């Protein structure tokens, strides 16, 4: 059964966001958008999370934190880049301290564009991320079964 689709828990990390996208992520939890109707919970703990939502571009300071967070999450896990900064670096991409989008460091699965990303598109991105979670889980199972047969 597709349980990941029904209960994706999100960890939100602000890499170097201007706070515009962060506010939009939080807004999607408020009564107006209420992502909890999809079973989505905003956790603060990588060990509980299924989806890592990153806002802002990556720089030298946030790179290691991001990698740490990602490595602490149990499989299957999905990374979602929220906002143009996280997608490509946005207007900051040429800055001397900015490495670029999140995909310079980690394998991003879902890109949510927009500056700031609209709550509607964030929710859409979360639901896309759920499907990828299911896929990853199925693939992991297949791989494990394959290893058993060998």
């Amino acid at each position, binding site marked *: 059964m597709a349980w990941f689709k*029904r209960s994706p828990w999100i960890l939100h990390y602000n890499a170097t966001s201007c706070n515009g996208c962060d506010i939009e992520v939080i807004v999607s939890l408020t009564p107006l958008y209420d992502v909890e*109707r999809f079973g989505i919970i905003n956790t603060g*703990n990588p*060990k509980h999370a299924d989806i890592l939502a990153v806002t802002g571009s990556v720089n030298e300071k946030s790179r290691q934190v991001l990698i740490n967070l990602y490595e602490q999450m149990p499989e*299957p896990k999905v990374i979602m880049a929220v906002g143009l900064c996280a997608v490509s670096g946005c207007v900051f991409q040429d800055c001397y301290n900015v490495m670029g989008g999140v995909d310079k460091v980690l394998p991003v699965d879902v890109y949510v564009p927009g500056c700031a990303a609209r709550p509607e598109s964030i929710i859409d991105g979360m639901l896309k991320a759920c499907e990828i979670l299911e896929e990853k889980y199925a693939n992991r199972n297949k791989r494990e079964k394959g290893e058993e047969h060998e």
Partner: protein
Amino acid sequence: MNTIQEMFQSWGMVERAVAFILLAPLAGGLIAGIDRRVSARFQGRYGPPVLQPFYDVFKLMQKQRILVNKFQNFNILLFLLFTVFSGALFFMGVDLLLTIFSLALAGTFFVLAGFCVGSPFSHLGAEREIIQQVAYEPMVILLAVGMYQVTGSFKVAEIAQFQAPLILYLPGVFAGFLYILTIKFRKSPFDLSMSHHAHQEIVRGMTTEFSGPALAVIEIAHWYENVMLLGMVYLFFGFNPWLGLGVALLTYLFEIFIDMNYARFKWQLTFGSSWLFTAVAGVSNIIVLGLMR
């Protein structure tokens, strides 16, 4: 209802225990789902599906198993085992004191699980859990004492079948028990160590190092515990099963209402207020009962 009760009474102890072990998680999960839905409505939100807690647990079961150290799982499994054990004892109708003590033992293993990892957040959560235990434990024991004073027995089966309304003898004990139920259900203002809300904060500390299946086990143990505590509420109204069930459900709704309306207390206030309330409501009730004899 009477037929249900008669059927339940005609069962042997083993059958009752099995019924509890199989049915309690269903009931507990459903209650938790309704809880989340009602809470959301209180906040002006739509809320998750009623079956959401089951989805969460099934999902957690499918997640990768990450262990910080091997004692972590050992403690968590014992926590589940003793919670189930004490619930089963309760529904088998044997000694109420034994039930209470094995529940306390379960709580102790939970605290040990929090302490056996390295994370300071987990340690803080475990310390808060101890404070909560010290805060609620006296009242739980007074509950058993009070019931013994009225019915002359510690046996749950005999207390449940006591024909006079227990609530009339023990209004203070019931009020005190309601107060500490808020701690046991992990509801605001007393949700210091493992809150249902505020997943980013220190009040979630206890679960910091648990992921996947271990977290699911904690959740399931919590369901078992809730069903058993509602059973204890039922005991006060055992003379009329319908009333008992109704009051048990109302109690839960009341706790949700409190949860939604209160900001979290500091641990000092949690501890002080629950002991004060235990003394004023519980102890005085028992003293009055003693004088009436």
